[in-house]
């Protein structure tokens, strides 16, 4: 009898644990890890709606390079995570080595803005 009761308690906690784990995963911010360029290494938690990448001193992710435009690109929250958007920059942005105008980011993507090279990590 005691064993059955214990078994029931254990079953009841499983959904709760799953919900808690998923919630923790959902609220953990995605990150940009800079691996090359001035400022590397650094880890940028993507904990707001929009980030400006560029040479401008006010940029959220500053890239101190003459090849970077002042407001070179945006990282903007998207319903599937984050999106990379070129801001009509002079030298463009590369996603996994390909020049793109915009792209929804996926875990492990490599983003290059001027000399700055970043890896995108989902939570």
């Amino acid at each position: 009898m005691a064993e059955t009761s214990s078994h029931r308690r254990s079953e009841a906690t499983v959904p709760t644990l799953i919900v808690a784990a998923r919630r923790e995963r959902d609220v953990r911010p995605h990150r940009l890890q800079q691996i090359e360029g001035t400022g590397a290494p650094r880890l940028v938690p993507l904990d707001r709606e929009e980030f400006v990448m560029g040479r401008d001193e006010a940029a959220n992710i500053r890239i101190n390079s003459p090849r970077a435009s002042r407001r070179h690109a945006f990282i903007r929250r998207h319903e599937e995570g984050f999106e990379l958007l070129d801001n009509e920059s002079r030298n463009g942005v590369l996603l996994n080595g390909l020049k793109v105008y915009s792209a929804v980011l996926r875990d492990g993507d490599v983003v290059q803005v001027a000399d700055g090279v970043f890896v995108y990590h989902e939570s």
Partner: protein
Amino acid sequence: MAMIVKFWGVRGSIPTTAQWARVFGGNTPCVEVRCDDAVFICDAGTGIRELGRDLARRSPAPKAAHLFLSHLHLDHIQGLPFFLAAVPDLRVHVYGVSDDDTSRQRLLSGELGAEFFPQNSSVPRASLTFDHLEEDARNVSGVRVKSFPLQHPGGCHGFSFECDGRKVVYASDVDLEAGLAGAKERTATSDLMTLRPVPRALLNAARGADLLIVDGQYNDTQYRAHMGSGHSSCLTATDLAIQADVKSLALFHHDPDDRDSDVETKVKLCLARTAKLGADLPIFAAREGMALKL
């Protein structure tokens, strides 16, 4: 005039929601070509639903869009009812490839009927206008649009879009080796030094394009196992791009069973082939949610 190309659906045959296909995406074909304010849409696979939602969010919202259907197989039309519901104020021009081509009107009228899609007369949806190209070409909103035939069971067409010196070519669902002698032998050898023959109509249409989007569903082994299904080896697609002297190549219509890693392997195979042939050709796999500015 800037030309922007965005991939909304890149998967062939049937949508996949598998986690292992998440990077390149699981929606069936839909590509948007934008020239300033003019919106052109290639195919209405499930990817077009998200395009519709995006168009509805744009400011100012476009009043019209021009839809070019390569053919009427399910994976190229199944998103249309959802698209029309997402953009109720939009006028959608659907183009046949000639003035007597009413196949699209007949079939889409059926697809949008109550037997196939729930109807609710109180919910507005975009209006459809059926139009056609004239002798395979037409100027639409300042863009030169041309169509050309593709080898695919039941018939298929590709489209090229040219504006302000830029050109993009869309050629989904094509067997580049169909009707050419020796296809099985060619794709069974690892001959990296001889360019494969390709269909002349497509070669001419693609010549000099800034971007060629073409069916590269299979590797050579898969191709030989699926000959007659109307799709191509990515290596033959690479040879087409080299011979047409295009500036970049997007492999498209990814196999529904291909994992992201399989798609990446195909790109590597193609890049190895271009390196062996001494060609300087950027090759990538079309990826849902990615846009390029030409």
